């Protein structure tokens, strides 16, 4: 087992990830060979974090003048799919960083954008998203972390749990209850009163460096509040989660594609009763369903991305649907990928055991599948009126 990538460092401007093809090449070279090792040690190494930065992958959707490359959302989804194909833990870090960077760009004041987006774009500052608490997950209305106005600024108190990348992040986007509603706050890791406690040995995405973050009388300036207050404060959370959900949908599709590629390769070489495993009709049935669902998930994701690029509000529901479909398909096909591999699939010698564990996480994060189904059901009546 090794975490060391022997490939030489990328030169400035060289090896930039600009599309699916370059993302696939990056992932095949720098991620796929090491993903199982990351999973076993429970962390993504600094060398990879730096390589991701060199490739311009942390926030390529930011404008060129703000540390990004102006990448469109359809392409971003394709890039996150490729990263998810290689390593869901790395994709998880990308997801939460994307959420923070996008939120600052979308809702930040000019001063907030100027202060944070260049460093978020370059990866010099890594972001993490702090919403869930010990007593509040998908039920965001139950959060108890508070931000109280004081001396022209804010005082933050509470505990956030399951914070992806929390062990490593430099900047936390914290959602807290204010007198008026739920507000979003930018909190530096080094602010007095911030404590980070690693969470290890999770079922899946084991290298995503989860943490519990405590905020004890953390004093924040007025510029820590991000976005509008009042009734629209909830939109910051809605928009942030929407993009996170889009990335998780892409990552789920990546898992599904990885299951397909691993199963196809295994079935081509593994022999049973004198013939290749892939000759067996029941194995063909599993592979055909993987191919079909991967294509369907990719179409749903591309549609959600196209609507995002167009600024169309229909992207919100399209993203719910893409994430629901892709995550459930990933779980279903990861189980079949293990089945195809037999005992080998239960061993550390093949990636499908990791894919199986990672897939289950996708049904829970960024809105559990139960919440997703309730939300999608609300579309039912509209669906009838909008169909041609």
């Amino acid at each position, binding site marked *: 087992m090794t975490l060391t990538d022997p490939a030489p460092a990328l030169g400035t401007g060289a090896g930039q990830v600009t599309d699916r093809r370059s993302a696939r090449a990056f992932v095949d070279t720098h991620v796929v060979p090491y993903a199982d090792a990351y999973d076993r040690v429970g962390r993504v190494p600094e060398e990879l974090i730096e390589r991701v930065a060199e490739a311009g992958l942390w926030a390529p959707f930011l404008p060129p003048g703000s540390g990004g490359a102006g990448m469109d959302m359809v392409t971003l989804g394709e890039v996150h799919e490729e990263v998810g194909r290689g390593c869901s833990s790395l994709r998880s870090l990308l997801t939460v960083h994307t959420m923070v960077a996008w939120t600052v760009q979308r809702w930040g004041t000019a001063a907030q954008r100027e202060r944070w987006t260049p460093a978020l774009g370059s990866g010099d500052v890594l972001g993490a998203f702090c919403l869930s608490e010990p007593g509040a997950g998908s039920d965001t209305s139950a959060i108890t972390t508070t931000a109280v106005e004081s001396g022209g600024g804010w005082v933050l108190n509470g505990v956030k749990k399951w914070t992806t990348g929390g062990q490593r992040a430099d900047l936390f986007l914290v959602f807290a209850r204010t007198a008026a509603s739920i507000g979003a706050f930018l909190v530096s890791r080094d602010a007095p009163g911030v404590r980070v406690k690693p969470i290890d040995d999770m079922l899946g995405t084991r290298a995503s460096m989860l943490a519990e973050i405590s905020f004890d009388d953390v004093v924040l300036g007025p510029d820590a509040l991000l976005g509008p207050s009042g*009734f629209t404060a909830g939109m910051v959370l*809605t928009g942030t989660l929407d993009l996170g959900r889009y990335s998780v949908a892409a990552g789920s599709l990546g898992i599904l594609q990885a299951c397909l590629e691993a199963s196809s390769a295994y079935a081509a070489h593994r022999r049973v009763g004198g013939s290749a495993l892939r000759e067996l009709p029941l194995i063909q049935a599993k592979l055909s369903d993987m191919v079909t669902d991967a294509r369907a998930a990719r179409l749903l994701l591309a549609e959600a991305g196209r609507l995002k690029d167009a600024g169309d509000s229909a992207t*919100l529901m399209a993203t719910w649907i893409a994430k629901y479909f892709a995550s459930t398909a990933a779980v279903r096909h990861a189980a079949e990928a293990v089945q195809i591999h037999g005992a080998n699939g239960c061993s550390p010698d093949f990636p499908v055991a990791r894919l199986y564990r990672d897939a289950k996480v996708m049904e829970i994060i960024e809105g559990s599948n139960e919440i997703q189904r309730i939300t999608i059901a609300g579309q039912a009546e509209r669906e009838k009126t909008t169909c041609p």
Partner: protein
Amino acid sequence: MSATAKDQILAFVRERYPQAEIDASQDIFALGFVNSLFAMELVMFVEKTFELTIPNEELRIDNFRTAESMASLVAKLSADLAAA
């Protein structure tokens, strides 16, 4: 401009809640239709349809209570844009 905007906004709200009878002067908050998801959809719809960006300071509840108030906001922001 504002009459067209009002009709377009009202049509969007009615499409979202086809079971409800809503007119342009009714408070959609008082009717209980607005959650954070719909608020986001509304803002995105207004920004895309009328090709403008709603600044944070205009994201106030009174600007979004009715189709009429949203149309007034569109008219104001469009005028600001034209004057810029």
